[in-house]
Protein backbone atom coordinates (compact mmCIF):
# COMPACT_ATOMS: atom_id res chain seq x y z
CA UNK A 1 0.00 0.00 0.00
CA UNK A 2 1.08 3.55 -0.56
CA UNK A 3 0.19 7.00 0.67
CA UNK A 4 -1.94 7.28 3.81
CA UNK A 5 -4.07 10.40 4.14
CA UNK A 6 -6.81 11.78 6.37
CA UNK A 7 -9.67 12.54 3.97
CA UNK A 8 -13.38 13.21 3.86
CA UNK A 9 -15.47 10.39 2.39
CA UNK A 10 -16.86 12.50 -0.44
CA UNK A 11 -13.35 13.51 -1.53
CA UNK A 12 -12.22 9.91 -1.40
CA UNK A 13 -15.07 8.98 -3.78
CA UNK A 14 -13.76 11.49 -6.31
CA UNK A 15 -10.12 10.52 -5.82
CA UNK A 16 -10.92 6.82 -6.14
CA UNK A 17 -12.86 7.43 -9.37
CA UNK A 18 -9.92 9.34 -10.85
CA UNK A 19 -7.57 6.53 -9.85
CA UNK A 20 -9.92 4.08 -11.57
CA UNK A 21 -9.54 6.02 -14.81
CA UNK A 22 -12.73 8.05 -14.68
CA UNK A 23 -12.24 11.30 -16.61
CA UNK A 24 -15.89 12.26 -17.07
CA UNK A 25 -18.11 13.52 -14.27
CA UNK A 26 -21.55 15.13 -14.52
CA UNK A 27 -23.44 16.28 -11.46
CA UNK A 28 -25.77 18.71 -9.78
CA UNK A 29 -25.22 20.16 -6.30
CA UNK A 30 -27.09 18.59 -3.40
CA UNK A 31 -26.17 18.18 0.27
CA UNK A 32 -24.53 16.02 1.64
CA UNK A 33 -22.43 14.90 -1.35
CA UNK A 34 -21.41 18.13 -3.07
CA UNK A 35 -17.73 17.81 -2.10
CA UNK A 36 -17.50 15.15 -4.81
CA UNK A 37 -18.25 17.85 -7.36
CA UNK A 38 -15.87 20.33 -5.74
CA UNK A 39 -13.02 17.83 -5.98
CA UNK A 40 -13.90 16.76 -9.52
CA UNK A 41 -14.23 20.30 -10.88
CA UNK A 42 -10.68 21.11 -9.81
CA UNK A 43 -9.08 17.81 -10.81
CA UNK A 44 -10.81 17.41 -14.17
CA UNK A 45 -9.59 20.81 -15.28
CA UNK A 46 -6.05 19.91 -14.22
CA UNK A 47 -6.21 16.48 -15.87
CA UNK A 48 -8.00 17.58 -19.05
CA UNK A 49 -11.09 15.55 -18.20
CA UNK A 50 -14.73 16.55 -18.31
CA UNK A 51 -16.61 18.16 -15.47
CA UNK A 52 -20.07 19.56 -16.19
CA UNK A 53 -22.32 21.08 -13.57
CA UNK A 54 -25.60 20.18 -15.21
CA UNK A 55 -28.85 22.13 -15.05
CA UNK A 56 -30.56 19.28 -13.17
CA UNK A 57 -30.09 15.72 -12.03
CA UNK A 58 -32.15 14.67 -15.06
CA UNK A 59 -29.66 16.31 -17.37
CA UNK A 60 -26.67 15.01 -15.39
CA UNK A 61 -27.68 11.35 -15.65
CA UNK A 62 -28.39 11.77 -19.36
CA UNK A 63 -24.95 13.31 -19.88
CA UNK A 64 -23.61 10.21 -18.14
CA UNK A 65 -25.71 8.16 -20.59
CA UNK A 66 -24.02 9.97 -23.47
CA UNK A 67 -20.48 9.59 -22.15
CA UNK A 68 -21.10 5.93 -21.29
CA UNK A 69 -22.39 5.39 -24.84
CA UNK A 70 -19.03 6.69 -26.02
CA UNK A 71 -17.41 3.99 -23.89
CA UNK A 72 -15.91 6.32 -21.30
CA UNK A 73 -15.53 5.60 -17.59
CA UNK A 74 -18.06 8.04 -16.18
CA UNK A 75 -19.57 8.90 -12.82
CA UNK A 76 -22.29 11.02 -11.27
CA UNK A 77 -23.08 11.56 -7.62
CA UNK A 78 -26.12 12.83 -5.79
CA UNK A 79 -28.26 12.38 -2.71
CA UNK A 80 -31.72 10.92 -2.24
CA UNK A 81 -34.08 13.54 -3.79
CA UNK A 82 -31.58 13.95 -6.61
CA UNK A 83 -31.45 10.20 -7.14
CA UNK A 84 -35.25 10.19 -7.46
CA UNK A 85 -34.81 12.55 -10.40
CA UNK A 86 -32.09 10.38 -11.93
CA UNK A 87 -34.25 7.28 -11.85
CA UNK A 88 -35.53 7.84 -15.39
CA UNK A 89 -32.02 7.82 -16.78
CA UNK A 90 -31.00 4.91 -14.56
CA UNK A 91 -33.76 2.68 -15.96
CA UNK A 92 -32.81 3.65 -19.51
CA UNK A 93 -29.13 2.98 -18.78
CA UNK A 94 -29.89 -0.44 -17.32
CA UNK A 95 -31.90 -1.33 -20.43
CA UNK A 96 -29.28 0.07 -22.82
CA UNK A 97 -26.61 -1.76 -20.76
CA UNK A 98 -24.41 1.24 -20.16
CA UNK A 99 -21.59 0.91 -17.63
CA UNK A 100 -21.51 3.83 -15.18
CA UNK A 101 -20.95 4.52 -11.50
CA UNK A 102 -23.67 6.36 -9.60
CA UNK A 103 -23.01 7.52 -6.05
CA UNK A 104 -25.91 8.04 -3.64
CA UNK A 105 -24.95 9.64 -0.32
CA UNK A 106 -28.27 9.11 1.36
CA UNK A 107 -30.12 11.75 3.37
CA UNK A 108 -33.35 11.43 5.31
CA UNK A 109 -36.71 11.53 3.58
CA UNK A 110 -39.33 11.27 2.24
CA UNK A 111 -39.83 14.46 0.26
CA UNK A 112 -37.23 17.13 0.70
CA UNK A 113 -36.88 15.50 4.11
CA UNK A 114 -33.69 16.71 5.71
CA UNK A 115 -29.97 16.77 5.09
CA UNK A 116 -28.99 14.39 7.90
CA UNK A 117 -27.76 10.86 7.20
CA UNK A 118 -30.16 7.98 6.56
CA UNK A 119 -30.44 4.61 4.84
CA UNK A 120 -33.93 5.17 3.48
CA UNK A 121 -32.91 4.79 -0.20
CA UNK A 122 -32.56 1.00 0.01
CA UNK A 123 -35.88 0.49 -1.77
CA UNK A 124 -35.24 3.01 -4.55
CA UNK A 125 -31.73 1.72 -5.25
CA UNK A 126 -31.89 -2.01 -4.50
CA UNK A 127 -35.45 -2.65 -5.64
CA UNK A 128 -35.19 -0.18 -8.51
CA UNK A 129 -36.86 3.21 -8.21
CA UNK A 130 -37.15 3.31 -11.95
CA UNK A 131 -39.58 1.40 -14.14
CA UNK A 132 -39.10 -2.07 -15.54
CA UNK A 133 -37.34 -5.31 -14.62
CA UNK A 134 -33.74 -4.39 -13.97
CA UNK A 135 -31.10 -4.62 -11.29
CA UNK A 136 -28.29 -2.32 -10.31
CA UNK A 137 -25.15 -3.66 -8.69
CA UNK A 138 -25.10 -1.96 -5.28
CA UNK A 139 -22.10 -1.60 -2.96
CA UNK A 140 -22.53 -0.44 0.63
CA UNK A 141 -19.17 0.50 2.16
CA UNK A 142 -18.91 1.02 5.92
CA UNK A 143 -15.64 2.95 6.18
CA UNK A 144 -13.79 5.50 4.13
CA UNK A 145 -11.10 2.91 3.34
CA UNK A 146 -13.70 0.49 2.04
CA UNK A 147 -15.39 3.33 0.15
CA UNK A 148 -12.16 3.94 -1.74
CA UNK A 149 -11.65 0.27 -2.58
CA UNK A 150 -15.25 -0.29 -3.66
CA UNK A 151 -15.36 2.80 -5.91
CA UNK A 152 -12.33 1.49 -7.83
CA UNK A 153 -13.90 -1.98 -7.95
CA UNK A 154 -17.24 -0.52 -9.08
CA UNK A 155 -15.75 0.79 -12.34
CA UNK A 156 -14.33 -2.64 -13.17
CA UNK A 157 -17.61 -4.39 -12.37
CA UNK A 158 -19.63 -1.86 -14.39
CA UNK A 159 -17.45 -2.43 -17.46
CA UNK A 160 -17.39 -6.21 -17.01
CA UNK A 161 -21.16 -6.55 -16.97
CA UNK A 162 -22.15 -3.44 -18.97
CA UNK A 163 -24.36 -2.43 -16.06
CA UNK A 164 -24.85 0.65 -13.88
CA UNK A 165 -23.27 0.27 -10.43
CA UNK A 166 -24.29 2.24 -7.35
CA UNK A 167 -22.22 3.19 -4.34
CA UNK A 168 -24.81 3.53 -1.58
CA UNK A 169 -23.48 5.38 1.44
CA UNK A 170 -25.24 7.19 4.22
CA UNK A 171 -24.45 10.85 4.88
CA UNK A 172 -21.92 9.95 7.59
CA UNK A 173 -19.76 8.11 5.10
CA UNK A 174 -19.66 11.13 2.80
CA UNK A 175 -19.04 13.68 5.50
CA UNK A 176 -16.68 11.98 7.94
CA UNK A 177 -12.91 12.14 7.76
CA UNK A 178 -10.94 8.95 8.22
CA UNK A 179 -7.51 7.67 7.37
CA UNK A 180 -7.36 6.10 3.94
CA UNK A 181 -4.38 4.25 2.55
CA UNK A 182 -4.11 4.41 -1.22
CA UNK A 183 -2.53 1.71 -3.35
CA UNK A 184 0.51 2.61 -5.44
CA UNK A 185 -1.21 1.18 -8.51
CA UNK A 186 -4.90 0.47 -8.92
CA UNK A 187 -6.28 -2.85 -10.21
CA UNK A 188 -7.86 -1.16 -13.23
CA UNK A 189 -9.22 -3.63 -15.76
CA UNK A 190 -9.22 -2.45 -19.37
CA UNK A 191 -12.22 -3.95 -21.04
CA UNK A 192 -12.85 -3.57 -24.77
CA UNK A 193 -16.05 -1.78 -25.74
CA UNK A 194 -16.68 -2.63 -29.38
CA UNK A 195 -20.32 -1.56 -28.88
CA UNK A 196 -19.44 2.07 -28.08
CA UNK A 197 -20.72 4.85 -30.34
CA UNK A 198 -17.45 6.56 -31.17
CA UNK A 199 -18.03 6.85 -34.91
CA UNK A 200 -17.84 4.03 -37.46
CA UNK A 201 -14.70 5.52 -39.07
CA UNK A 202 -16.18 3.73 -42.12
CA UNK A 203 -14.71 0.47 -40.85
CA UNK A 204 -17.77 -1.28 -39.42
CA UNK A 205 -21.57 -1.26 -39.40
CA UNK A 206 -23.02 1.50 -37.25
CA UNK A 207 -23.41 0.95 -33.52
CA UNK A 208 -26.73 1.80 -31.89
CA UNK A 209 -27.34 2.40 -28.19
CA UNK A 210 -31.04 2.12 -27.46
CA UNK A 211 -33.52 1.15 -24.76
CA UNK A 212 -36.57 0.79 -26.97
CA UNK A 213 -37.78 -2.52 -28.39
CA UNK A 214 -41.28 -2.10 -29.74
CA UNK A 215 -41.94 -5.74 -30.62
CA UNK A 216 -43.04 -7.94 -27.71
CA UNK A 217 -40.87 -10.93 -28.53
CA UNK A 218 -37.80 -8.81 -29.16
CA UNK A 219 -38.20 -6.98 -25.84
CA UNK A 220 -38.84 -10.23 -24.00
CA UNK A 221 -35.71 -11.74 -25.50
CA UNK A 222 -33.78 -8.66 -24.36
CA UNK A 223 -35.28 -9.02 -20.86
CA UNK A 224 -34.37 -12.70 -20.77
CA UNK A 225 -30.80 -11.84 -21.67
CA UNK A 226 -30.69 -9.18 -18.93
CA UNK A 227 -32.06 -11.67 -16.39
CA UNK A 228 -29.39 -14.16 -17.41
CA UNK A 229 -26.76 -11.48 -16.85
CA UNK A 230 -28.23 -10.67 -13.43
CA UNK A 231 -28.04 -14.34 -12.46
CA UNK A 232 -24.37 -14.42 -13.38
CA UNK A 233 -23.78 -11.26 -11.29
CA UNK A 234 -25.56 -12.93 -8.35
CA UNK A 235 -23.30 -15.93 -8.74
CA UNK A 236 -20.03 -14.04 -9.08
CA UNK A 237 -20.22 -10.66 -7.39
CA UNK A 238 -21.95 -11.11 -4.02
CA UNK A 239 -19.89 -9.68 -1.15
CA UNK A 240 -20.59 -10.04 2.56
CA UNK A 241 -18.85 -9.80 5.91
CA UNK A 242 -19.80 -12.57 8.33
CA UNK A 243 -18.45 -11.76 11.77
CA UNK A 244 -18.67 -13.90 14.90
CA UNK A 245 -21.66 -15.86 13.53
CA UNK A 246 -20.60 -19.44 14.42
CA UNK A 247 -22.66 -20.47 17.44
CA UNK A 248 -24.02 -16.95 17.96
CA UNK A 249 -26.95 -16.42 20.35
CA UNK A 250 -28.18 -13.52 18.26
CA UNK A 251 -27.26 -12.46 14.71
CA UNK A 252 -27.57 -8.77 13.91
CA UNK A 253 -27.73 -7.51 10.34
CA UNK A 254 -26.71 -4.02 9.34
CA UNK A 255 -24.90 -2.33 6.45
CA UNK A 256 -22.83 0.81 6.06
CA UNK A 257 -21.90 2.84 9.12
CA UNK A 258 -24.66 1.21 11.21
CA UNK A 259 -22.66 -2.02 11.09
CA UNK A 260 -19.91 -0.22 12.99
CA UNK A 261 -22.30 0.59 15.82
CA UNK A 262 -23.27 -3.08 15.88
CA UNK A 263 -19.63 -4.08 16.30
CA UNK A 264 -19.54 -2.05 19.52
CA UNK A 265 -22.68 -3.84 20.67
CA UNK A 266 -20.97 -7.18 19.99
CA UNK A 267 -18.21 -6.20 22.47
CA UNK A 268 -20.72 -4.99 25.07
CA UNK A 269 -22.76 -8.17 24.77
CA UNK A 270 -19.68 -10.40 24.97
CA UNK A 271 -18.85 -8.88 28.36
CA UNK A 272 -22.30 -10.04 29.48
CA UNK A 273 -21.72 -13.53 28.11
CA UNK A 274 -23.95 -13.10 25.03
CA UNK A 275 -22.42 -14.10 21.70
CA UNK A 276 -23.61 -11.79 18.95
CA UNK A 277 -22.82 -12.30 15.28
CA UNK A 278 -22.99 -9.78 12.47
CA UNK A 279 -23.94 -10.35 8.85
CA UNK A 280 -22.99 -7.21 6.96
CA UNK A 281 -23.99 -7.19 3.30
CA UNK A 282 -21.30 -5.40 1.28
CA UNK A 283 -23.34 -5.85 -1.89
CA UNK A 284 -27.00 -5.03 -1.26
CA UNK A 285 -27.73 -6.33 -4.73
CA UNK A 286 -26.86 -9.07 -5.22
CA UNK A 287 -28.06 -9.66 -1.66
CA UNK A 288 -26.00 -12.21 0.30
CA UNK A 289 -28.97 -14.49 0.99
CA UNK A 290 -26.74 -17.55 1.28
CA UNK A 291 -25.23 -16.24 4.53
CA UNK A 292 -28.69 -16.07 6.07
CA UNK A 293 -29.60 -19.51 4.82
CA UNK A 294 -26.37 -20.85 6.31
CA UNK A 295 -27.02 -19.38 9.77
CA UNK A 296 -30.84 -19.39 9.75
CA UNK A 297 -31.10 -22.01 12.52
CA UNK A 298 -28.06 -20.88 14.54
CA UNK A 299 -29.26 -17.97 16.72
CA UNK A 300 -32.29 -17.53 18.94
CA UNK A 301 -33.30 -14.74 16.61
CA UNK A 302 -32.14 -12.18 14.07
CA UNK A 303 -32.19 -8.43 14.52
CA UNK A 304 -31.93 -6.00 11.62
CA UNK A 305 -30.82 -2.45 12.39
CA UNK A 306 -31.17 0.36 9.88
CA UNK A 307 -31.40 4.13 9.64
CA UNK A 308 -34.79 3.67 8.02
CA UNK A 309 -38.29 2.56 8.91
CA UNK A 310 -37.43 -0.96 7.77
CA UNK A 311 -36.29 -1.61 4.21
CA UNK A 312 -33.42 -4.12 4.06
CA UNK A 313 -35.24 -6.14 6.73
CA UNK A 314 -37.60 -7.35 3.97
CA UNK A 315 -34.70 -9.05 2.19
CA UNK A 316 -33.45 -10.53 5.47
CA UNK A 317 -36.91 -12.02 6.09
CA UNK A 318 -37.03 -13.40 2.54
CA UNK A 319 -33.61 -15.03 3.03
CA UNK A 320 -34.43 -16.45 6.49
CA UNK A 321 -37.71 -17.60 4.97
CA UNK A 322 -39.61 -18.19 8.19
CA UNK A 323 -36.97 -20.46 9.73
CA UNK A 324 -36.28 -17.96 12.52
CA UNK A 325 -37.63 -14.69 13.90
CA UNK A 326 -36.36 -11.46 12.35
CA UNK A 327 -36.86 -8.34 14.43
CA UNK A 328 -36.24 -4.78 13.42
CA UNK A 329 -34.94 -1.64 15.04
CA UNK A 330 -34.65 1.56 13.01
CA UNK A 331 -34.43 5.31 13.44
CA UNK A 332 -35.46 7.93 10.90
CA UNK A 333 -35.25 11.67 10.37
CA UNK A 334 -31.47 11.69 10.62
CA UNK A 335 -31.35 9.98 14.01
CA UNK A 336 -28.94 7.15 14.66
CA UNK A 337 -29.82 3.75 16.14
CA UNK A 338 -28.52 3.85 19.70
CA UNK A 339 -25.94 1.36 20.90
CA UNK A 340 -27.74 0.82 24.24
CA UNK A 341 -31.09 0.20 22.53
CA UNK A 342 -29.52 -2.34 20.17
CA UNK A 343 -27.88 -4.01 23.20
CA UNK A 344 -31.22 -4.23 25.04
CA UNK A 345 -32.89 -5.80 22.00
CA UNK A 346 -30.02 -8.29 21.78
CA UNK A 347 -30.50 -9.17 25.48
CA UNK A 348 -34.25 -9.66 24.91
CA UNK A 349 -33.65 -12.08 22.04
CA UNK A 350 -30.83 -13.89 23.88
CA UNK A 351 -33.01 -14.41 26.97
CA UNK A 352 -35.60 -16.38 25.01
CA UNK A 353 -35.95 -19.97 26.14
Amino acid sequence: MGEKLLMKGNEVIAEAALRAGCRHYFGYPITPQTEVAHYMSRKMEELGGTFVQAESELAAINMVYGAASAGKRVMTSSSSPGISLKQEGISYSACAELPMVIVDIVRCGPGLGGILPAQCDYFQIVKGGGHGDYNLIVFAPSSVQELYELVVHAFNVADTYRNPVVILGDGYLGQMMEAVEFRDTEPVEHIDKPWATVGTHMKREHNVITSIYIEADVLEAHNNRLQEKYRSIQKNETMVEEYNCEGADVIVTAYGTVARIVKNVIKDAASEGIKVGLIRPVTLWPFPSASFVKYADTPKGFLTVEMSAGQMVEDVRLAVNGRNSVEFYGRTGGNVPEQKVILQKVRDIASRV
Partner: protein
Amino acid sequence: MSIVFDRPHALADKPLHYCPGCTHGIIHRLIAEVIDELGIEGITVGVSPVGCTYNNYEYFNCDMVQAAHGRAPAVATGLRRSLPDNVVFTYQGDGDLAAIGTAEIVHAATRGERITTVFVNNAIYGMTSGQMAPTSLIGQVTTTTPFGRKPELHGYPVRVCELLSTLEGAAYIERTAVNNVKNIRKAKAAIKKAFELQMSGAGFTLVEVLSTCPTNWGMNPVRSLEWLEKNMMEHYPLGVYKDVTASAAAE
Protein backbone atom coordinates in the same frame (compact mmCIF):
# COMPACT_ATOMS: atom_id res chain seq x y z
CA MET B 1 -24.80 6.48 -68.27
CA SER B 2 -23.69 8.48 -65.24
CA ILE B 3 -25.72 8.52 -62.05
CA VAL B 4 -26.93 12.04 -61.27
CA PHE B 5 -29.16 11.29 -58.32
CA ASP B 6 -28.66 8.57 -55.72
CA ARG B 7 -29.33 7.70 -52.11
CA PRO B 8 -26.82 9.44 -49.83
CA HIS B 9 -24.39 6.94 -48.32
CA ALA B 10 -25.26 8.09 -44.78
CA LEU B 11 -28.93 7.19 -45.35
CA ALA B 12 -29.72 3.51 -44.87
CA ASP B 13 -31.39 1.60 -47.71
CA LYS B 14 -34.60 0.92 -45.78
CA PRO B 15 -38.23 1.88 -46.29
CA LEU B 16 -39.24 4.71 -43.95
CA HIS B 17 -42.15 4.03 -41.60
CA TYR B 18 -43.58 7.55 -41.70
CA CYS B 19 -47.15 8.40 -42.78
CA PRO B 20 -47.89 9.50 -46.36
CA GLY B 21 -47.06 13.17 -46.83
CA CYS B 22 -44.91 13.40 -43.69
CA THR B 23 -41.80 15.51 -44.24
CA HIS B 24 -39.48 13.64 -41.84
CA GLY B 25 -38.15 11.65 -44.80
CA ILE B 26 -37.06 14.82 -46.60
CA ILE B 27 -35.33 16.12 -43.48
CA HIS B 28 -33.55 12.79 -42.92
CA ARG B 29 -32.29 12.95 -46.48
CA LEU B 30 -31.02 16.51 -46.09
CA ILE B 31 -29.01 15.54 -43.01
CA ALA B 32 -27.60 12.49 -44.80
CA GLU B 33 -26.64 14.58 -47.84
CA VAL B 34 -24.83 17.08 -45.59
CA ILE B 35 -22.98 14.25 -43.81
CA ASP B 36 -21.90 12.87 -47.20
CA GLU B 37 -20.82 16.25 -48.55
CA LEU B 38 -18.76 17.02 -45.45
CA GLY B 39 -17.31 13.48 -45.49
CA ILE B 40 -18.08 13.03 -41.78
CA GLU B 41 -20.16 9.82 -41.66
CA GLY B 42 -17.35 7.96 -39.91
CA ILE B 43 -17.05 10.49 -37.09
CA THR B 44 -20.69 11.47 -36.67
CA VAL B 45 -22.85 10.29 -33.78
CA GLY B 46 -26.56 11.10 -33.96
CA VAL B 47 -29.03 11.21 -31.08
CA SER B 48 -32.59 9.99 -31.70
CA PRO B 49 -35.51 11.48 -29.77
CA VAL B 50 -38.82 10.19 -28.48
CA GLY B 51 -41.68 10.70 -30.90
CA CYS B 52 -42.39 9.57 -34.45
CA THR B 53 -38.67 9.48 -35.19
CA TYR B 54 -37.69 7.52 -32.06
CA ASN B 55 -36.08 4.87 -34.28
CA ASN B 56 -34.45 7.10 -36.87
CA TYR B 57 -31.27 5.32 -35.74
CA GLU B 58 -32.46 2.72 -38.26
CA TYR B 59 -32.15 5.24 -41.08
CA PHE B 60 -28.74 6.80 -40.50
CA ASN B 61 -25.60 4.77 -41.16
CA CYS B 62 -23.52 6.71 -38.67
CA ASP B 63 -23.38 5.63 -35.00
CA MET B 64 -26.62 6.47 -33.18
CA VAL B 65 -27.79 6.80 -29.58
CA GLN B 66 -31.45 6.76 -28.64
CA ALA B 67 -32.35 9.22 -25.85
CA ALA B 68 -35.19 9.60 -23.36
CA HIS B 69 -37.95 12.12 -24.12
CA GLY B 70 -36.44 15.60 -24.23
CA ARG B 71 -33.00 14.55 -23.01
CA ALA B 72 -31.22 14.40 -26.37
CA PRO B 73 -29.23 17.63 -25.76
CA ALA B 74 -27.95 16.23 -22.43
CA VAL B 75 -27.02 12.92 -24.04
CA ALA B 76 -25.35 14.83 -26.88
CA THR B 77 -23.45 16.88 -24.31
CA GLY B 78 -22.09 13.69 -22.74
CA LEU B 79 -21.13 12.35 -26.17
CA ARG B 80 -19.54 15.53 -27.47
CA ARG B 81 -17.54 16.15 -24.29
CA SER B 82 -16.27 12.57 -24.53
CA LEU B 83 -15.53 12.70 -28.26
CA PRO B 84 -13.93 16.10 -28.92
CA ASP B 85 -12.99 15.20 -32.50
CA ASN B 86 -16.37 13.84 -33.52
CA VAL B 87 -19.56 15.49 -34.80
CA VAL B 88 -22.76 15.12 -32.77
CA PHE B 89 -26.29 15.99 -33.79
CA THR B 90 -29.70 15.62 -32.20
CA TYR B 91 -32.97 15.24 -34.09
CA GLN B 92 -35.93 16.43 -32.02
CA GLY B 93 -39.59 17.25 -32.42
CA ASP B 94 -41.56 20.08 -30.85
CA GLY B 95 -42.91 18.13 -27.87
CA ASP B 96 -39.52 16.61 -27.19
CA LEU B 97 -37.56 19.86 -27.47
CA ALA B 98 -39.98 22.62 -26.48
CA ALA B 99 -42.00 20.92 -23.71
CA ILE B 100 -40.40 18.08 -21.76
CA GLY B 101 -36.88 18.94 -22.90
CA THR B 102 -36.96 22.72 -22.56
CA ALA B 103 -34.38 22.82 -19.78
CA GLU B 104 -32.00 20.54 -21.67
CA ILE B 105 -32.07 22.52 -24.93
CA VAL B 106 -31.83 25.91 -23.21
CA HIS B 107 -28.84 24.85 -21.13
CA ALA B 108 -27.07 23.04 -23.97
CA ALA B 109 -27.33 26.33 -25.87
CA THR B 110 -26.32 28.32 -22.78
CA ARG B 111 -23.18 26.25 -22.38
CA GLY B 112 -22.42 26.62 -26.06
CA GLU B 113 -22.22 22.86 -26.49
CA ARG B 114 -20.70 22.09 -29.86
CA ILE B 115 -23.63 20.11 -31.15
CA THR B 116 -26.16 20.57 -33.93
CA THR B 117 -29.86 20.22 -33.23
CA VAL B 118 -32.32 19.67 -36.04
CA PHE B 119 -35.62 20.78 -34.56
CA VAL B 120 -38.69 19.58 -36.46
CA ASN B 121 -41.70 21.77 -35.68
CA ASN B 122 -45.03 20.46 -36.93
CA ALA B 123 -47.10 22.10 -34.19
CA ILE B 124 -48.46 18.82 -32.84
CA TYR B 125 -47.59 15.59 -31.04
CA GLY B 126 -47.48 12.97 -33.77
CA MET B 127 -46.69 9.61 -32.23
CA THR B 128 -49.14 9.88 -29.32
CA SER B 129 -51.87 10.85 -31.81
CA GLY B 130 -52.30 14.54 -32.21
CA GLN B 131 -52.16 16.27 -28.83
CA MET B 132 -51.41 19.97 -28.39
CA ALA B 133 -47.71 20.80 -28.69
CA PRO B 134 -46.06 23.84 -27.13
CA THR B 135 -45.85 25.10 -30.72
CA SER B 136 -49.52 24.47 -31.61
CA LEU B 137 -51.09 27.66 -32.95
CA ILE B 138 -53.87 29.66 -31.33
CA GLY B 139 -57.16 28.17 -32.50
CA GLN B 140 -55.54 24.91 -33.62
CA VAL B 141 -57.71 21.88 -32.98
CA THR B 142 -55.87 18.92 -31.47
CA THR B 143 -56.99 15.87 -29.51
CA THR B 144 -56.35 17.79 -26.26
CA THR B 145 -57.65 21.14 -27.53
CA PRO B 146 -60.86 19.85 -29.15
CA PHE B 147 -62.31 23.37 -29.28
CA GLY B 148 -59.08 24.95 -30.44
CA ARG B 149 -56.06 26.25 -28.53
CA LYS B 150 -57.16 29.16 -26.35
CA PRO B 151 -54.56 31.43 -24.71
CA GLU B 152 -56.54 31.68 -21.48
CA LEU B 153 -56.63 27.89 -21.15
CA HIS B 154 -53.55 26.66 -22.98
CA GLY B 155 -51.13 29.56 -23.17
CA TYR B 156 -49.26 30.69 -26.26
CA PRO B 157 -47.17 28.90 -28.89
CA VAL B 158 -43.46 29.14 -28.10
CA ARG B 159 -40.99 30.52 -30.64
CA VAL B 160 -37.87 28.44 -30.09
CA CYS B 161 -35.44 30.22 -32.45
CA GLU B 162 -36.30 33.63 -31.00
CA LEU B 163 -35.87 32.27 -27.47
CA LEU B 164 -32.54 30.51 -28.03
CA SER B 165 -31.03 33.29 -30.12
CA THR B 166 -30.84 35.46 -26.98
CA LEU B 167 -28.27 33.08 -25.50
CA GLU B 168 -24.57 33.85 -25.88
CA GLY B 169 -23.63 30.19 -26.29
CA ALA B 170 -25.74 29.89 -29.43
CA ALA B 171 -23.59 30.29 -32.55
CA TYR B 172 -26.12 29.65 -35.27
CA ILE B 173 -29.92 29.58 -35.15
CA GLU B 174 -32.05 29.46 -38.28
CA ARG B 175 -35.68 28.65 -39.01
CA THR B 176 -36.40 26.92 -42.29
CA ALA B 177 -39.26 24.98 -43.87
CA VAL B 178 -39.62 22.03 -46.22
CA ASN B 179 -42.79 23.16 -47.98
CA ASN B 180 -41.26 23.68 -51.42
CA VAL B 181 -38.06 22.99 -53.35
CA LYS B 182 -36.60 26.42 -52.74
CA ASN B 183 -37.07 26.16 -48.99
CA ILE B 184 -35.84 22.57 -48.93
CA ARG B 185 -32.59 23.74 -50.51
CA LYS B 186 -32.36 26.54 -47.95
CA ALA B 187 -32.97 24.07 -45.14
CA LYS B 188 -30.13 21.91 -46.39
CA ALA B 189 -27.80 24.90 -46.61
CA ALA B 190 -28.71 25.82 -43.01
CA ILE B 191 -28.06 22.29 -41.75
CA LYS B 192 -24.73 22.24 -43.57
CA LYS B 193 -23.70 25.58 -42.10
CA ALA B 194 -24.71 24.41 -38.63
CA PHE B 195 -22.57 21.26 -38.93
CA GLU B 196 -19.63 23.30 -40.24
CA LEU B 197 -19.88 25.76 -37.36
CA GLN B 198 -20.05 22.91 -34.87
CA MET B 199 -16.88 21.48 -36.41
CA SER B 200 -15.12 24.83 -36.21
CA GLY B 201 -15.96 24.97 -32.49
CA ALA B 202 -18.16 28.06 -32.78
CA GLY B 203 -20.76 26.84 -30.29
CA PHE B 204 -24.31 25.57 -30.19
CA THR B 205 -26.18 25.35 -33.50
CA LEU B 206 -29.86 24.70 -34.20
CA VAL B 207 -31.90 24.54 -37.37
CA GLU B 208 -35.67 24.59 -36.95
CA VAL B 209 -37.60 22.98 -39.78
CA LEU B 210 -41.30 23.81 -40.17
CA SER B 211 -42.90 20.52 -41.07
CA THR B 212 -46.31 18.98 -41.66
CA CYS B 213 -48.30 16.22 -40.01
CA PRO B 214 -51.13 15.39 -42.43
CA THR B 215 -52.34 12.45 -40.33
CA ASN B 216 -52.85 14.37 -37.11
CA TRP B 217 -53.77 17.65 -38.77
CA GLY B 218 -56.53 15.74 -40.60
CA MET B 219 -55.56 17.12 -44.00
CA ASN B 220 -54.16 15.67 -47.17
CA PRO B 221 -50.46 16.35 -47.87
CA VAL B 222 -51.07 19.20 -50.34
CA ARG B 223 -53.54 20.94 -48.06
CA SER B 224 -51.09 20.44 -45.18
CA LEU B 225 -48.37 22.33 -47.03
CA GLU B 226 -50.82 25.15 -47.71
CA TRP B 227 -51.77 25.24 -44.01
CA LEU B 228 -48.10 25.42 -43.07
CA GLU B 229 -47.55 28.33 -45.46
CA LYS B 230 -50.66 30.27 -44.41
CA ASN B 231 -50.56 29.69 -40.67
CA MET B 232 -47.23 28.47 -39.37
CA MET B 233 -45.03 30.81 -41.38
CA GLU B 234 -46.94 33.79 -40.06
CA HIS B 235 -46.29 32.86 -36.44
CA TYR B 236 -42.88 31.34 -37.11
CA PRO B 237 -41.10 33.60 -39.63
CA LEU B 238 -38.30 31.93 -41.59
CA GLY B 239 -34.81 33.33 -41.36
CA VAL B 240 -31.49 33.45 -39.56
CA TYR B 241 -31.92 34.40 -35.90
CA LYS B 242 -28.32 34.11 -34.82
CA ASP B 243 -25.11 33.82 -36.76
CA VAL B 244 -21.84 34.53 -35.00
CA THR B 245 -19.99 34.48 -38.31
CA ALA B 246 -22.22 37.27 -39.67
CA SER B 247 -21.74 39.47 -36.59
CA ALA B 248 -17.98 38.83 -36.77
CA ALA B 249 -18.00 39.90 -40.42
CA ALA B 250 -20.00 43.03 -39.58
CA GLU B 251 -17.38 44.07 -37.05
